[in-house]
């Protein structure tokens, strides 16, 4: 396993370097920089712009240096925990992300738990009771979940929660707690608001997972080893859990790689619609305003999380299913 771990780590290193170069190139691609956009915005509002001040700012933020120098400074800063300075917010990037990152992680973690808790029993039931009325009904619900746009469901749920439970519209807490330190009342308020985005964001994922689990499990249930297990008198539930269900979980282990970046960037549109204090809307604003260090740090963070996620899922797959594939071959 050590050799596998080392080989996977070796693959990660050039991948991360390439990603950092690509990310930096992407955030530099639009013509001009943040200050150019800033000057154009001031001029469009009829305000005078002092070229000396702009030149001073350009020098101060290192925007007049060659691109490779800017890149090295940026990467060197990240290694020291300094993600740069946000021009738009006039604050260090780490301060802007602050609480938002933890709230984003909370929302996404709860969504993943919701998705798994709901999808697994339904997916297993649908597969083991194929073509029953319950299977048809759950399939219909699954298709509805897949087909309903997030933002539409968000609006409906906001209205429903407000009318039924009196929950305030939008946000992850009542207004009086915004910017306040954490207290039991604030936690209670977050919990009162949290279930709405969790259901909204989790619905399509739940429906998708039900469909995939049902399909995977149906494939496995038709294999000969299941028939052999039945013929040997293995109890049906034990047979299901120990063999076909385990085999049908491999695609879900592979999906772990997709969950980590979702912790930061998931459901940006829903966050905008529901005014959630998560990181998605900030990323969107940073990309629109060419706030290069904020946008770059976000993109780099997402890429690193993706690479780590894929690494973890590969480790899990190697640990759970260390079998050769018949089309494979050994390297010598």
């Amino acid at each position: 396993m050590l050799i596998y771990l080392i080989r996977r780590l070796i693959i990660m290193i050039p991948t991360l370097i390439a990603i950092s170069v690509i990310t930096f190139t992407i955030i530099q691609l639009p013509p001009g920089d943040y200050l150019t956009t800033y000057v154009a915005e001031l001029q469009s509002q009829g305000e005078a712009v002092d070229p000396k001040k702009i030149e001073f700012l350009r020098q101060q933020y290192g925007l007049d240096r060659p691109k490779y120098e800017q890149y090295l400074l940026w990467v060197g800063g990240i290694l020291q925990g300094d993600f740069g300075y946000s021009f738009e917010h006039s604050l260090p990037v780490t301060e802007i992300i602050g609480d938002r990152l933890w709230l984003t992680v909370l929302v996404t973690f709860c969504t993943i738990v919701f998705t798994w808790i709901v999808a697994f029993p339904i997916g297993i039931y649908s597969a083991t009771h194929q073509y029953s009325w319950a299977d048809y009904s759950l399939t219909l619900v699954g298709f509805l979940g897949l087909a309903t746009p997030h933002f539409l469901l968000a609006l409906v749920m906001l209205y429903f929660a407000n009318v039924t439970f009196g929950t305030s519209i939008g946000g992850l807490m009542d207004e009086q707690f915004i910017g306040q330190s954490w207290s039991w009342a604030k936690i209670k308020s977050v919990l009162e608001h949290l279930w709405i985005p969790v259901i909204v964001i989790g619905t399509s994922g739940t429906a998708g997972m039900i469909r995939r689990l049902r399909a995977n499990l149906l494939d496995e249930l038709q294999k000969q080893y299941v028939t052999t297990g039945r013929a040997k008198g293995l109890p049906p539930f034990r047979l299901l859990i120990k063999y076909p269900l385990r085999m049908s979980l491999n695609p879900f282990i592979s999906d772990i790689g997709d969950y980590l970046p979702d912790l930061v960037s998931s459901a940006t549109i829903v966050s905008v619609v529901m005014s959630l204090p998560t990181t998605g809307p900030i990323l969107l604003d940073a990309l629109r305003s060419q706030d290069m260090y904020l946008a770059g740090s976000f993109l780099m963070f997402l890429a690193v999380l993706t690479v780590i996620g894929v690494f973890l899922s590969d480790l899990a797959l190697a640990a759970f299913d260390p079998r050769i594939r018949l089309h494979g071959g050994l390297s010598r």
Partner: protein
Amino acid sequence: MKLARYPINALLADYGRAALGLAATGGPLLFVPPNPAMVIILGGMAGLFLIFGLRTGLRQLTTVEVSERGVRVTGLRSTALDWTVLKGLRIRYYSTRRDRTQGWMQLKLDGPDGTIGFDSHLDGFDELVKRAAAAARTAGLTLNEATLDNLGALGIERAGLGSADEARP
């Protein structure tokens, strides 16, 4: 009796990996004053690459003797296992590719004095596995499904080798 060693090509590749990994993770620690979290992450990874490099060095000094009687590993850490006292056999397959091709196998043999590990880069790995499987068959060992599948991929019959996962009413 057959003598087997790890081929120099495979070892050179592993030395290269260890050096590259050490440079990529230890280098930033030397040239940029990193923050504590980065010291832990990069330092931990550099430690892993260092261990891997040392392990590759140990492999270079290792010779494996496979005989009718058992397997003997000589080098800095010498050990031996008689086939008659074989307690367990596991073969795992690893690949860094998404389609899981071009990978390698790892054989673990459990004996009374501990576990001995080999990987498929070893010259004569197939012969070693065949003898180990025959010994497992004689000893009536039960092997897990993954090991049985991997034995099958190496052209070794699974008949006579009990499956630890076999369905029992």
